[in-house]
């Protein structure tokens, strides 16, 4: 066991990948000598060379599009998109090309490109630097989407993403980059496309992922003071979603809260609420309740505290659920 931050855990995961897979390499803006704007790739260029840690021109479609070509040639590109809000120039390549090449070729071709995207708010930044666009990608068949919430998952998920034969987007919770945790570099935590119950409870279930998992855990602890036993699930995988784990939990607790920073309208929470309503109809004591961003472009930093789900917003949702 080693204690490290999430950023360092991803760095170590990338280091292990580069060392173990000669076909793998990193590409993105400012990831080489600078080590990335968040220093997630720090030291990797010096260790593996510019050939394995490529600074690219400042062009997101170019990054994804050329990564697709290199993957078709048998290489394993790991792309960094510098910020969530800057993925959109590459959106066409991700959704019309990367996601579809396997099925377009009737299963003959694969483009196992990995795309790392720091996402989410809470860092007091300027426009386009705090968004959570995961639902836009989850709606696209052919992509897989995972998001770690802790250092151990961060270390392993990036390596598991590279091993996957499908394209994988790894959304990295940027405001948790400096959150420390224990990393077991010997034993991987198993299938990355599964949810984990990170706190057991009997009265309600909070499903969260990425940056909101620590918030959900804190809300569950606060609820315990009021006598409510709240289970917390770290979704980990946004596509596919491990509905079985959520279903088992809700059948036990009878109440479901889904929390994410992204706007609730058309979001992942609605998908989970709908599916769990079908699966757990007779177990539910209350309708599934979503806690998320409002239907507005991500607001200016000075008011983002009102936008981002926090402990109180989750407790308010629990109150509503318990009121039924």
């Amino acid at each position, binding site marked *: 066991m080693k204690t490290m931050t999430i950023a360092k855990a991803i760095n170590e995961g990338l280091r292990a990948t580069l060392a173990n897979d000669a076909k793998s390499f990193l590409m993105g803006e400012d990831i080489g000598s600078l080590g990335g704007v968040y220093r997630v790739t720090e030291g990797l260029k010096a260790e593996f060379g510019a*050939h394995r840690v490529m600074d690219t021109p400042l062009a997101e*479609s170019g990054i994804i599009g*050329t990564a697709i070509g290199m993957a078709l*040639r048998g290489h394993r590109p790991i792309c960094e998109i510098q910020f969530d809000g800057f993925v959109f120039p590459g959106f*066409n*390549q991700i959704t019309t090309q990367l996601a579809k090449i396997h099925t377009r070729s*009737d*299963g003959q071709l694969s483009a196992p490109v990995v795309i790392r995207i720091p996402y989410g708010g809470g860092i007091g930044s300027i426009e386009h630097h705090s968004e959570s666009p995961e639902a836009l990608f989850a709606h696209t068949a052919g992509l897989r989407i995972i998001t770690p919430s802790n250092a151990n998952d961060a270390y392993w998920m990036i390596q598991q993403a590279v091993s996957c034969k499908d394209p994988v987007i790894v959304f990295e919770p940027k405001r948790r980059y400096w959150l420390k945790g224990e990393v077991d570099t010997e034993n991987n935590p198993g299938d990355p496309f599964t949810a984990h119950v990170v706190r057991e409870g009997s009265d309600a279930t909070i499903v969260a992922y990425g940056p909101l998992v620590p918030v959900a855990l804190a809300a569950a602890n606060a609820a315990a003071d009021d006598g409510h036993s709240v289970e917390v699930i770290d979704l980990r995988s946004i596509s596919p979603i491990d509905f079985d784990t959520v279903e088992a939990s809700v059948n036990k607790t009878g109440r479901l809260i889904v929390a994410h920073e992204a706007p609730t309208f058309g979001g992942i929470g609605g998908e989970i609420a709908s599916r769990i309503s079908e699966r757990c109809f007779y177990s539910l004591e209350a309708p599934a309740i979503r806690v998320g961003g409002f239907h507005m472009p991500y607001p200016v930093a000075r008011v983002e505290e009102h936008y981002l789900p926090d402990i109180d917003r989750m407790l308010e949702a629990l109150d509503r659920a318990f009121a039924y």
Partner: protein
Amino acid sequence: MGAAQQSATGIGSENGTRVGPAGASAGVLQPHTVGERDMVQLLDAAGNRRHEDTFGPYVDELDAKTLRGFYRDMAVVRRFDAEATALQRQGELALWVPVVGQEAAQIGSGRAMRPADYAFPTYREHGVALTRGLDLADLLKLFRGISNGGWDPRENNFHLYTLVLAAQTLHAVGYAMGIQRDAAADSASEPAAVVAYFGDGASSEGDVHESMVFAASFNAPVVFFCQNNNWAISVPFEVQSKVPLVNRAGGYGFPGIRVDGNDVLAVYAVTQWALDHARSGKGPVLIEASTYRVGAHTTADDPTKYRASAEEEAWRAKDPLQRLETYLRAEGLADDDFFAQVKNDGDELASHVRRATLALGGASIRQKFATVYAEAHPLVAEELAWFENYEAGFAAADTQTSQGGAA
């Protein structure tokens, strides 16, 4: 008076602006160097052989059989194209994308490639497909709604057709960068290059720009082959660019060649030169092949609504097949028997394509479920299971109905 009007009068030339020609000072970009009439040509529209020092030697060394092969390829692709158009008109294809008029650009560039080279086509490169050895019947699977691909690109180093304009130019550059990485890892690997096909319409897409930036920055072994057929569906070339596209190469810092795209010999020669350039580590090249889409954009298009028939007639006079036939006959390189044989070959190919298309059968929704992901996926599995159960319900109902009817 509004601010806009004030501003407009403030910069008007009648007010004595100082803005004139920028002059020839250092730091002032001079106009483009390749004009609308400039192009490499080795066989003119009348079939006369022209001599040119850089590219001529690539053709001088060709034997009669190869030259006849160029003609044969162009003629059978034209025949194939007519058959596919007929299949669409008869309701056997949802759509067809005619290639007529562009045969020289495609056969010339395709024949310049080696087996280890790789082509990334648009959706109109039927001639290139022929040169790569595809069974042309496979091209029709896409247009018959049976597959979104239709062949294994790795068998002939000919990628799938890409319908989102210019997306494939980035894939081509990435693939070329992959070739570079392989060469760096294994110096004994066979030198190879990539040809990225695109058209004048796609040249306005951002991906073409980004692909050229990446290719230049990483010195990728890629040849950008633009078939400028003068029309992006109904929009004329002048809307995409005010100057020949070849001039853009200078902005990226690599060579550009404008070639008569209806002259198969010149296209072959310049593409050979460009591929040699790319394979030998000297980086990318842009080729602009000046040609013309004689037919419609697709079988759903109607060119009479946007262009004059006189323009079409002017381009028919520059027909790529006619000029090579004239040359081959004048030089005594081909006789009537050869041209009769070519016609026969074209008819046989057309017959094969028709038979193969009609025998294609249907598509399978189960195959689509099976190919969304390369690895197992619980949602796809769940939806497939639901679908099978749903379908089985109909089968059970049918059985009950037929049993009831019998009783």
